[in-house]
């Protein structure tokens, strides 16, 4: 009877998968092991080869790598699992780190627990407000198609140039690039984080020029590669990688200056192995690891002692002088104001698009 056969197969498959489930959870070493939550893709590859493997060897420990989720999703997960163990260490963007810290989800850290913090640039020690060191920064640059945008731009205002109507891509304000663009537009309009109205005004003016509304960073790649998009604000790290891959792009920090996003590591309050977690963060801040990250994926290091060969100058911000030229937004204020800005952005851009039709 057919049904009998089906029943048997279902049972076999179900048992097999139960077995699979059970087996993959076994073998949990309790000591000398931490779980680190990072990102996937190239970041993950570099992290695993150049940081985790040397760490495991040097400290005779195991680091389990979890690449799931963006910084915001990690924060959501931390919040949902409050007081329960999820990870020992997690990477978080600056403002997410502050939010997590204030909600009681992270351990306070300083040079006593993580000695290498003393070796960082001053802002990298302070910006995390004690919830974590700033481990790297990435400035927002103006990315342009070298063949199509002539002369080579040197100002953010090129985004508003009607000559490039439909060839500009911008991000939703819920994502870092969009948020920073709003701030930069505010600065250009004579405002700042606390007086944001000029920013929204300039954004409305920008809407007719925008040909693509993108959110995830890798989403940009097909548009740039197919030359559907010629101009966009973008993260320097990824931009340099695309240039390395052979795309005809140029990256420039416009004369008006720019903002940089900060990355940090946070140690969970509910971490199992805090001592090892602190060692891991400390290890990452070592000169060798910081330098490796800068070379491979162009994350600007925060350890003062890092130096890079001259071919990296202009591609990664290294050294006090280069870092000094970067501006960091008031992350405190950002954490508080973002909600209102998201709502206003939704409404304003929706309106602007409606009247365009």
């Amino acid at each position: 009877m057919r049904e009998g056969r089906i029943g048997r197969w279902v049972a076999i498959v179900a048992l097999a998968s139960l077995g699979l489930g059970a087996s993959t959870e076994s073998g949990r070493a309790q000591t000398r092991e931490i779980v680190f939550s990072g990102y996937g893709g190239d970041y993950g590859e570099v992290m695993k080869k150049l940081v985790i493997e040397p760490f495991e060897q040097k400290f005779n420990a195991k680091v389990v790598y979890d690449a799931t989720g963006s910084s915001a999703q990690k924060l959501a997960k931390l919040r949902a699992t409050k007081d329960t163990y999820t990870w020992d260490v997690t990477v978080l963007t600056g403002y997410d780190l502050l939010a997590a810290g204030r909600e009681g989800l992270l351990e306070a850290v300083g040079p006593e627990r993580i000695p290498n913090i003393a070796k960082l640039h001053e802002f990298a020690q302070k910006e995390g407000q004690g919830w974590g060191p700033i481990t790297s920064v990435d400035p927002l640059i103006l990315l342009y198609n070298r063949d199509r945008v002539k002369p080579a731009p040197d100002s953010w205002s090129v985004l508003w140039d009607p000559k490039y109507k439909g060839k500009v891509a911008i991000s939703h304000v819920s994502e870092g690039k969009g948020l920073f663009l709003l701030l930069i537009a505010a600065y250009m309009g004579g405002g700042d984080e606390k007086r944001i109205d000029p920013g929204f005004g300039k954004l409305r003016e920008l809407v007719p020029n925008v040909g693509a509304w993108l959110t995830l960073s890798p989403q940009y790649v097909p548009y740039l590669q197919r030359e559907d998009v010629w101009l966009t604000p973008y993260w320097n790290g990824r931009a340099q990688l695309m240039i390395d891959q052979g795309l005809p792009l140029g990256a420039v920090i416009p004369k008006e200056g720019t903002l940089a996003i900060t990355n940090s590591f946070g140690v969970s309050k509910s971490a199992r192995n805090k001592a090892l977690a602190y060692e891991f963060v400390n290890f990452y801040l070592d000169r060798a690891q910081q330098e490796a990250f800068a070379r491979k994926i162009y994350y600007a290091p925060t350890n003062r002692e890092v130096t890079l060969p001259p071919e990296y100058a202009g591609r990664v911000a290294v050294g006090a002088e280069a870092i000094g030229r970067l501006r960091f937004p008031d992350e405190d204020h950002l954490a508080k104001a973002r909600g209102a800005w998201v709502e206003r952005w939704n409404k304003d851009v929706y309106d602007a698009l409606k009247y365009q039709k």
Partner: protein
Amino acid sequence: MSRRGRLLLGAVNAAIYAFLLAPILVVVVVSFGDAAYLQFPPRRLSLRWYTDLGEYPDFVRSFWLSLGLAAATTAVSGVLGILGALALVRHRFPGRDLLGALVMAPAALPGLVTGIALLQFFSLFRTEPSFWRLLLGHVVVTLPYVVRSVAAVLAGLDRSLEEAARGLGAGPWAVTRLVTLPLIKPGVIAGALFAFILSFDNVVVSIFLTTPRLVPLPTQIYNYVESSARPIIASISTLQIAVIVAMLLLAERLIGFSRLYTGGTER
């Protein structure tokens, strides 16, 4: 049906099938490109994104997990769904309509909400992230599809065959097992297909319920895509397609989809 009618139907179908396949074919073609970034149409062809797969053991592990998870989800959802559909369609009890509406809710809510809700709930019990969490999340998300598919076929069923069986002296359980279940096979198979594929495909709920060691394939792909846009994801997706297709063909062999309807007249 007339000849002209058949041709028209065929033409409409062909156009719709082309629509269904188009973006999928793009992904498959891109996976054979040589460039270091996603390029369509590819200038040069190469197998490098397949040979490079060995460098991504995480994806292979995720693949096996997804397979097992999908199978288990199908089994659990299937049983719960069939029982539930029988109750909803054939019986009357207080709260029946509410149950019928509520069973659809997991499909109508963004997976994000279900994922966060389940994660928060599980955390209350101080349990560890585990395979069971993933399984429960997947079952909840696929139940609406199984219930609806079975209920649809059940609702239109001709009762006379069951009446005849009962008239011949068969007890209710025997009638269900030997007459009803075979008759609703098309619905069960459709539901099982949904459960399997949707579980295999599930991204968002899984993001919140994964453990560092247990990452289903779509979540793994999503993690990768959030950071990089290399063609490796095209080759992995192509392999995913190939494997699911192989699984479906295997299931077809064993269960015989092509003859779904086991009763009535056939032309």
